């Protein structure tokens, strides 16, 4: 009787709703603490990033134009899909150094975080909008709108919770994004792309690359069709580089280097959504004919 040979998973990248290999043909093999190779992972290139930004830009009009309620349902769907594949994520986290207990906690927290932001999709606008009592005879109101395409270097010290914590508020607010996964722990990011792909998230809304921040960070910061960049490490040289490159097109550079993504109190709030929102103010005259008052 022969033993069954296990089918190994190929870890690919996720661009525009497709799972291509990197155009560069390059790969790297991150290892866990036990020295075991995790997988041959795509070493994404500048060209992969450009393709992903193109996909994100194409998806932006449609995604930002969706009803907020619809986005809420889609985020909730992501959480449902993640719940269903919990075991796989726990396995991958364990493979990437976590204890079984910590792995389960991280996956549970990730699911809950997506639910948390699913709920905000159609609520943060009400909290952060205003009707402005201007002195002239005009109706005037301000509402948040998504900034556009956001490039994200995902938190490097975690495989799943960091990634989920930076993607969820960005897409909850109607932005699209290109995310570079944790270099050393990339497995969950690719599997999370599969979850996204089966959750009615339109192709291009979330694009996930694997590779080296040291190589790609510059491009993430300087691309002229990216409106905001998120960086989560305490690395002053990189933060400076990002801000300098961001000046090319007045990109919003957002840093989350002090955040512990496992701390439920401090690592989730609607302010993570408003960080990539613009405030739009609209004016319209109110007619002033007649003298009737709303007196009754």
């Amino acid at each position, binding site marked *: 009787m022969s033993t069954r040979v296990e089918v190994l998973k190929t870890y690919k990248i996720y661009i525009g709703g497709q799972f291509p290999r990197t155009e560069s043909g390059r790969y790297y093999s991150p290892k866990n603490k036990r020295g075991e190779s995790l997988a041959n992972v795509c070493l994404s290139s500048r060209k992969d990033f450009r393709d992903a930004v193109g996909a994100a830009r194409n998806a932006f009009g449609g995604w930002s134009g969706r009803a907020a309620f619809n986005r809420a349902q889609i985020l909730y769907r992501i959480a449902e899909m993640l719940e269903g594949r919990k075991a796989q994520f726990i396995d991958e986290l364990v493979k990437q150094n976590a204890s079984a207990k910590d792995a389960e906690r991280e996956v549970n927290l990730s699911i809950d975080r997506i639910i948390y932001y699913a709920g905000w999709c159609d609520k943060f606008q009400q909290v952060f909008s205003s009707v402005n009592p201007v002195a002239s005879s005009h109706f005037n109101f*301000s509402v948040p709108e998504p900034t556009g395409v956001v490039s994200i270097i995902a938190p490097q010290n975690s495989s799943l919770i960091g990634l989920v914590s930076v993607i969820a508020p960005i897409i909850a607010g109607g932005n699209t994004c290109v995310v570079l996964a944790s270099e050393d722990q990339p497995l969950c990011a690719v599997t999370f792309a599969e979850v996204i792909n089966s959750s009615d998230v339109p192709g291009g809304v979330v694009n996930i690359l694997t590779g080296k921040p040291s190589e790609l960070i510059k491009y993430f910061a300087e691309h002229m069709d990216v409106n905001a960049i998120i960086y989560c490490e305490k690395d002053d040289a990189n933060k400076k580089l990002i801000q*300098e490159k961001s000046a090319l097109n007045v990109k919003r550079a957002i840093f989350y280097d002090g955040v512990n993504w496992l701390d439920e109190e401090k690592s989730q709030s609607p*302010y993570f959504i408003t960080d990539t929102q613009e405030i739009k103010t609209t*004016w319209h005259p109110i007619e002033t004919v007649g003298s009737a008052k709303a007196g009754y």
Partner: protein
Amino acid sequence: MAKATKNNTLKLKFDSLKYAPAPESKSSATINAQYDLFINGKFERPLSKKYFDTINPATEEKLSSVADANAADIDKAVKAARNAYSNVWSKMAAKERAKYIYRIARMIQERAREFAVIETLDGGKPIRESRDIDIPLAANHFFYYAGWADKLDYAFPNQHPKSLGVAGQIIPWNFPLLMAAWKIAPALATGNTVVLKPAETTSLSALKLAEIIQESDLPPGVVNILTGAGATGAAIVNHPDINKIAFTGSTDVGKIIQRATAGTNKKVTLELGGKAANIIFEDAPIDQAVEGIINGIYFNQGHVCCAGSRLFVQESVYKEVLRKLKDRIATLIVGDPMDKNTDIGAINSKQQLETIHKYINIGKKEGAEMFESSCALPRKGFFCRPTLFTNVAQSSRIAQEEIFGPVLTIQTFRTDDEVIEKANNTPFGLSAGVWTDKGSKIFNLTTKLRAGVIWANTYNKFDPTSPFGGYKESGFGREGGLHGLGAYLNVHS
């Protein structure tokens, strides 16, 4: 004398009907021969020992000489601001802070006439605009933000926002006092102290404000006002003990500031250039829309970052709109800014006039057709006739770059989709205008135009309660309203 034309509009014959001069008196304003720097509650001679002239752009006559602050002066001011922040302002009860700001608002109101005269003499804008728009709005801005000082916890739920420290603020020459108010009022209300630099061509109203601040007994060092040019601004941007940079000006300088503050922990907000689309549909009330277009581009000589400088007219009404625009331009009174009848005053500086002429020449060379008012211009001073270009390509530089003068480009469109595409096809995103009688069309357009301020069936309206600021390369952060508080507080991360 008026005669009805075929299309039933009235055309006034201005050759036989002239306005008598109605000059505002200069006597209500006191302008010193020389101004020093306002540091720590006192006017102090600059360590640089240098002064520069500020002139009246309508007459080219010298009004005063103004201190040119160097890096040592800025350092002195920052130390005063830091001391005031640590020892006085951040410790004061918020409701007491508010009262100082209210006091400043009242004092501006009391001296509104003086401010208006100074603003017009130094900057060239029509007295009607400084009197009716700039100065009242500046006073109102202080009055509005004063009331926020002790209510900040209600603005940012769950945040307990904290002030940042010392704010360095650099403002432009197009709305000198108003921009000072936009910067200083929210900074003080949120508990920060200020080092502010006005633009070098329009220092006087900010210095007059410094006098008021001194009279108001605001604790020394809470607001410091230092005059100078680009190097003075750079000294503010690069000072290591400043926590916040707020800048209003060109996108080019904004990018330099963003780069210069990289690697520091300075919080930055930028209110930069624009190239706004003003879109007129066939069902719009055309006469109102024409007034709005005129106001959109020729208000303040077109020195407005949110000016409606790209006009898009639906093809079916193009001829009518163009004819009415030309008729209206012919009636605009260009000349002495101190005359209460003047519509278009002096261009702010010789340098800016040259920039505008450069773009007019580019427009001609690019093959666009130019039309300008036939009015006579004063012999002295910097003046430019209201100008428009037709046959403008989307790729034309006059349709892509910010001119910051009374120059309008006109393009046509057929469908909603086409005009949304064209309007958004720019790196800027500060403002836009839409003219139509159809409510659903307004909301379709206003939600799809990628800009921070959208005026529907109106244009160039401002209010202290109304957040203002850009998308994309027009900058980030908001000024005005509740949202304007965020620029001066630690909220989130």
